[in-house]
Structures are given as structure tokens and as C-alpha cells.
């Protein structure tokens, strides 16, 4: 499988304490990978490193086959980058933004920019500074797509979009990326965005990728149960690595990653367990299980 991004053991820090402490990540070509993790875990740092803005202290990184730090100028021509913190002059209109960007991208397609603007409902005469947060993100997305990038880096770009706009943008974006064969890596906190956009996820925990892979198999691996105990629940420990969501007097709700094991069978065989009831599962369960802040083994 070809990969747009290949990272092995990346370490990036701003001082003595590294933010990324050995990240391993593959983003297959043509995939839409969601980068998940708690605040401050290093999602933006990883994106900035992949974009050539930060230099990795250690590790091996290849983005579109290029070293993102040493060959960042060549890389910049082939990636699109949408970051709501990106600043542009206050006087700049959307079409003036295109005018400034065009010389930097030999593949810039002005007709495509206009078409995308119509598709994403972006007004070319609007001033960037006067757009709402969501509108501005979409305008920047149009500019990022207009030069037909091979890789799109998105850093929490859609937080300001309302529900309807989000639906419209997402469907247009997915369609465009699929048609163009563009890979995308986007950092987000919104599980709804992940559900709609991503076909893969990567979860950053403590500076490392704890969980990565295609979304559906991973989702299937997450299990959630309501467990009724024969004894008080206060001192009960599950017979496997799991995250306890709620602990009552004699009942517990927990979720766990099966990782191939039969979680339900393990619970049933616990002598203190009186009854096990499987619950509906969703992406949040998956993440909760993977994060497992307080492993209750």
C-alpha cells in the first residue's frame, strides 16, 4: 500500500519535555484519516511537523515521499493546509487571497477555485476578516483545494460551522477528495466529524499513537457491557483491561477493546458477576476504551 505519510519514531519537543515522544503513523494514499486526542496531546504539533513548519528532533518522516523539513519548499507546493489560526491581512478578500497564493503553486487552477467557491458557497468578494469563523475556514479550504494538492492537512477546521453548512461542506469535501484522490489528515475533537469524514483514525495518547487503523474494524472491536455483580461493586476489578464508565452499588458499566478476545466470556466466567448485558456501542466507546485513563485491572 502506498502511503502519503510515513512516520517512524518521531520525537518533537519545545524544551526538555517532548510533545511527541515517538510517533508511528501511516496515512495511506487516498485515505481520510482523523487525528484524535485530548487537548495538548500534540495533534497540532504533529501536523506542523508533517507540514515542514517544525523540525523533528528524532525519527524518520516522509510526506509524499519528501523529508518534510529539508524539502519543505517542494512539499509546500503539493499540500493544502487549513488551519483556523492561520492569519492573513485584514484587508484581503477571498479572490485576493487566491491571487496571492496562485504564484506559489504551479498547479493552481483558477477555474477550479471558482467552481469550488460556488460548490462550497463562498463569496469571492468577501473579506476574510469579515467572515465568520466557519465561513473563513471554508474559504481557506477552497484556497487549499484549488491547486489540487496531493495531501490536505486540516487542523480543527470546522468548529465554527453550523449543522447545515457542515453537512454541505462535508459531502462536497468527501466527493472532491475521492475524485481527486487526495489524502487528508485532519485533527479534530468532533466525533461527528470523524463519523462523517474519516475512513481511518489515529489516536494520540501521551505523545504516541495508541490506536490507528481503519475506522469500522476498530469500531467493531469496541465492546460495552452492563455488568450486575453478586457482591458490592466498590472493590470489584474487571478480569481484563477495560474502562469503567459508571460504578453503582452492585452494578457496573464498562467498555473495552476486545483485541480478538472474547470479552463477554471473560466477564461471564468471573465468579462475582451475576449477569452480563451487551450495550449499544459507538465511536465514543471506542475512544473511551482506548484512552483508558485509569485502567481498572
Amino acid at each position, binding site marked *: 500500500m502506498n502511503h502519503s505519510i510515513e512516520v517512524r519514531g518521531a520525537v518533537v519537543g519545545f524544551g526538555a519535555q517532548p510533545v511527541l515522544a515517538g510517533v508511528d503513523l501511516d496515512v495511506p494514499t487516498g485515505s481520510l484519516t482523523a487525528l484524535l486526542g485530548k487537548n495538548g496531546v500534540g495533534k497540532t504539533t504533529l501536523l506542523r511537523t508533517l*507540514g*515542514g*513548519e517544525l523540525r523533528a528532533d528524532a525519527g524518520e518522516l516522509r510526506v509524499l515521499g519528501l523529508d518534510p523539513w529539508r524539502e519543505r*519548499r*517542494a512539499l*509546500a*507546493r503539493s499540500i493544502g*493546509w487549513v488551519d483556523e*489560526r*492561520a*492569519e*492573513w*491581512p*485584514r*484587508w*484581503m478578500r477571498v479572490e*485576493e487571497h487566491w*491571487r*496571492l*497564493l*496562485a*504564484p*506559489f*503553486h*504551479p498547479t493552481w487552477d483558477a477555474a477550479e477555485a471558482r467552481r469550488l467557491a460556488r460548490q462550497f458557497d463562498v463569496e469571492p468578494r468577501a473579506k476574510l476578516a469579515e467572515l465568520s469563523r466557519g465561513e473563513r475556514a471554508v474559504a481557506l479550504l477552497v484556497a487549499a483545494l484549488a491547486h489540487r494538492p496531493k495531501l490536505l492537512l486540516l487542523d480543527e477546521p470546522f468548529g465554527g460551522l453550523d449543522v447545515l453548512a457542515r453537512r454541505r461542506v462535508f459531502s462536497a469535501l468527501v466527493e472532491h477528495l475521492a475524485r481527486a484522490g487526495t489524502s487528508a489528515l485532519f485533527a479534530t475533537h468532533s466525533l461527528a466529524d470523524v463519523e462523517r469524514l474519516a475512513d481511518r483514525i489515529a489516536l494520540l495518547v501521551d505523545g504516541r499513537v495508541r490506536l490507528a487503523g481503519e475506522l469500522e474494524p476498530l469500531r467493531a472491536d469496541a465492546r460495552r457491557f452492563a455488568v450486575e455483580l453478586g457482591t458490592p461493586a466498590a472493590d470489584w476489578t474487571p478480569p481484563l483491561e477495560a474502562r469503567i464508565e459508571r460504578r453503582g452499588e452492585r452494578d457496573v458499566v464498562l467498555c473495552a477493546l476486545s483485541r480478538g478476545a472474547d470479552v463477554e466470556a471473560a466477564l461471564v466466567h468471573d465468579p462475582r458477576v451475576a449477569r452480563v448485558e451487551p450495550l449499544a456501542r459507538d465511536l465514543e466507546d471506542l475512544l473511551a476504551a482506548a484512552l483508558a485513563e485509569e485502567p481498572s485491572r
Partner: protein
Amino acid sequence: MITLRILRALWWKEARDHRVLVITCALFYAAILLGAKLVLGDGFDANLRVGYVHPAGLLVVAAALAAEALAHDAASGVEVTLARLSLSRRTLWTAKASFVLAALAGFELFAFALEHALRAFEPQADTARLAPLVAWWFAALVVVACVLAAASLVRRALPAALIGCGVPVLLGWLCLCSPRPPFAGLLTRIAVASGPLGVACVAACALAIASLAAYSVARFDRFGLRRAGAFVLGGLAVMIAPLGWAVASAHSRLALAPHADGGNVWQALPSPDGRYVALVAERTCKLDRDWPLFSRDSWLSSAELSRTEVWIVERATGACRELADDRCRAPWASQRRGWSVGPWTNDGRLLAVSTEHGFGVDDERFEFVDPSEARMIEEFGADEAALESAAGVPPRWYHLEVQGDMRVLSFADGTHGTGVARDELLALSPEEGVYFVRGSDDALLRRNLRDGSERSIGVAAARTVLSPRVSPDGRWLALQRRDGLTILDAHDGRVVFGPEPGVLVEWSRHGRLATLESGTAAFAVELDGTRHPLPRGWPLECGSDGFVWRLPERITWRSLDGTRVETVYSVR
């Protein structure tokens, strides 16, 4: 090709970023010029504008633009975003620096157009000063470009400004603003060493101020003029400080302003045609504890805390031109130790001055001055062709040389006239080779050394004659005796005036008037006996159709009938 397209795009961005600032600067500069012209009138002349306001304005604009180019993107975060593009830092800074320089060139064109418009109705500037000033401007631009280049080597703009400008800012600020610099020796050397260095200090100072201003007002960026206003305030702070060093401008009456306390005019000599008055002025330094002030044009008041200078005043316009001699302009101790103004040539087109270059008697040098340009023409006898170009009839210099018992007429070209017996010399005539002596029979003799002739002009008891003085045209001889003043025909001794009580003060330049002092009264007399009462005052000297008063801080001209009184020159 791609790089050119990128440069063009960045240029366009810079132009859009800074167009409000550039236009505001140009309009503000025009407002300063026009406002000052309205308020100061003739005092705000071309030399003051070109010599001070223009360079200072250019420096402020350069500093503001450079600081904006440095700080604007960094402060707003655009710099980080631009770094994500396929853009080298070198290309980015090339675009910024070239935009700043191009904008400054545009400002220059605007300023020159404004200057050209103003000059349409006022005297021309002293063009001799323009070349070095232009060099200063370019030096300032080079400094700005260098700072921009240095800034490209570091990550952020503010550290760049501080690293690039820290030391010169400190020195420049101390030079400009501190009345008693703590490191006076070093700073004085820097200040007087060269013009461009001083300008560089000012530029660096302005750049730092403007850079800090740009950062401090960056968060209030909604209205472009607000930021420009901050630059204006910073610029004014830079511009006001050196005003005490106003350039000694040829046309400017502000020239002596910093030295008003110690200014004094020792000698005033009107030209025969009355168009000019030559002044010998002494500036004494205004002391501030132990430190002298020094002027911006590298003239210290001198090691003795005073210096003598010669000014040519054009009576009709009041324009003052300091006598310039770049050959002798050296910082600190001028080789020239003193001036005295000699006679005008009879046609009023050249003025002779003598200068002392050392302590010895032989160190005195005579030179000619063209009053229309207030510059040295040539030393006596060195190149008469140069003199001929300035005056229709080149003057000839001669003196009476004593050789043993003979008195010999010697010319500057080395030729000698006839020698005659050495007698008591009473007076020299402007007529070449003519002088008056007391003869052995106590008669007043008129001798001509060119042909060796000698004749008595019929004046007996020459021993009673005090200080005979020949009129500037050589026709009349004023004799002072105890019974008063008598004026004779210098050729035949015919009495044309007197004796009248009084003491001769001065002949008029055309020889038809003499000013007298008698008791406490002063008056001018014409040869037909007509008297013109003069007000009491300091000793008077004659012009052609009026009189010139010399007062400590003022030279005035008064017509013969007293109906017109003009202040020709004043030290403010």
C-alpha cells in the same frame, strides 16, 4: 519566472499593506512644508527644507516603512502563515526591502515635486550643499536596506531591529538628545566625524522607535491612520531633537540661532554698489557646564570656544551666505584662526579677505571672494584667469615694499615698480602706485611709483595732519587736523570741503559722502556741504545711497533722507 511572479505577488501584498501609511506620510510631509511656509514665511527657505526637513522627513518615512515591513507581518501572525508557502526567506525579504526602497523613491519624487513647486516663488537653495546631502540620503537608505537584510537572518523582526540597531541607537540617542553626554569624548568624535554616520545614528534611532511603536500599536490595527499617527509622534521626537543643530544654511536666517547668545558682528563692510554687506561675525560657544555645543555640520565652535566667520548679506533680499571654503573646513580645530575683511573692488564684484592660518606673521593669506556665491575664488596673484571670470577687470594686488632706504612698488606677479626714497608714509591711494608722504619741507607730497613722479599738493605743515584718508575712488583726500576735517582734491590739493569740526568716520564707497562725528552728533556730509543728520549710535559706515549701522546683533541700512530704514541682518 516563478520567482518573479512570487515577487510580484509579494510586492502587491506589501503595497496593499502599507498604502495608507505611504499616502499619510506624503500628505503629512506636504502639510508640514506648507504649514511651516505659511507660519515662517521666508525663514523657511529652500536650504532649511532641503538641508534639514527633507532628510529628516525621509528618514522618518524610511524608518516607519522599514519598521512596518519588519513588524507588521510578524505582529499580526501573517509571517507564520507565509512561511507555510513555498517561499524562501530570502525571497520574502527581498520583496519587502525592494518595496520599502521603491516606496521611498516614490516619496522622494513627491518631495522633489513639492520642493520644485515651492521654489517657483522663492530664492534657490545653495546648490553646493546638495551633493553631500544627497549622499546622506543614500547613506540612510543603505542603512535601512542593511537593517532589513540583517533582519532576514533572525527569526523575528523585533529582535532584528534591536540587534541591528541597539548600539547605534544608544549612541545616536545620546548624541541627539542628551545635553551632557556621559561619554562626551567618544560621542563628540562620532558626531563630528562624518555626516553619514550621524544620519545613520538618527536613522537607527528612528527605526527602533518606529519598530517599537509598530509593535505596541499592532493590536489596534483596525484603523491604519492610528498606526501612522504613532509613527508621526515617534518621527517628531526624532526630528525635533536635532533642531538645535540646524544646518548653517546660506539662505536661512535661522543659521545663527543656536549661537545667538554668543553672536557678535565685529565688522560690516558694504560693497561700493550697496548690494552686499560683508560681515565678520564671531560666534562664541554657549557653555553648558564644561561641554561645548557642536554643530551638525561638523563645525565645533572651536577649541577656543569661539570662531570667526564671514557672512555676505544681500541687502535687497536679506539673504545671508556664510563664506564657504571647503578646503579649510575641518572638524575640531579649524586651521583658520581669524578673518578680516579687506576692501571691495571698486565695481563691487569681489571682496578681499585676509585669513590667519597660524600664529606666525607669515601665516596670513589674502583671498578673493565672489559675493554672489559667497565662496573663495582664488588667492591673490595665484590665478588671475579665475578672477577675470568673476570680475570684468581683474584686480591687481600690489604693496609697497621697503628695500633698504628705498620704497619699491611690488606686484603680486613679482614685478616691481620704481623705487623712491623712504619717507614718512601718510596714506595709500586706491590709484595704483599712488601714495602720500610728508616731504622733507613738511609739505604733503603725492607720489606715483609707476612713473616715479612726485609733486606737492600745496598742503603746508604736514606734520599737523592726522591720519589722512583717501576716498575709495582716489579722487579726494580727507585731512584731519585740530581745527576739524578738510577734504581736498587728491590731485591738485584744491579744498572742496571744510575745515569743519568733526572726525572722519568713513568715506562712502563712491567717494561723494563722508560720515562725521562731532561731539555727540553724527552726520553725513556731501562735498557741496550738504549735511544729513544721523541718529546716535555705534560708529557708522557708508553705503552708496545710504548708511549702514553696525550694532551688536543687527545691521541696518538707512537712506540718506532717513525715510527708509531696513534691517539688513539680524542675529537671532
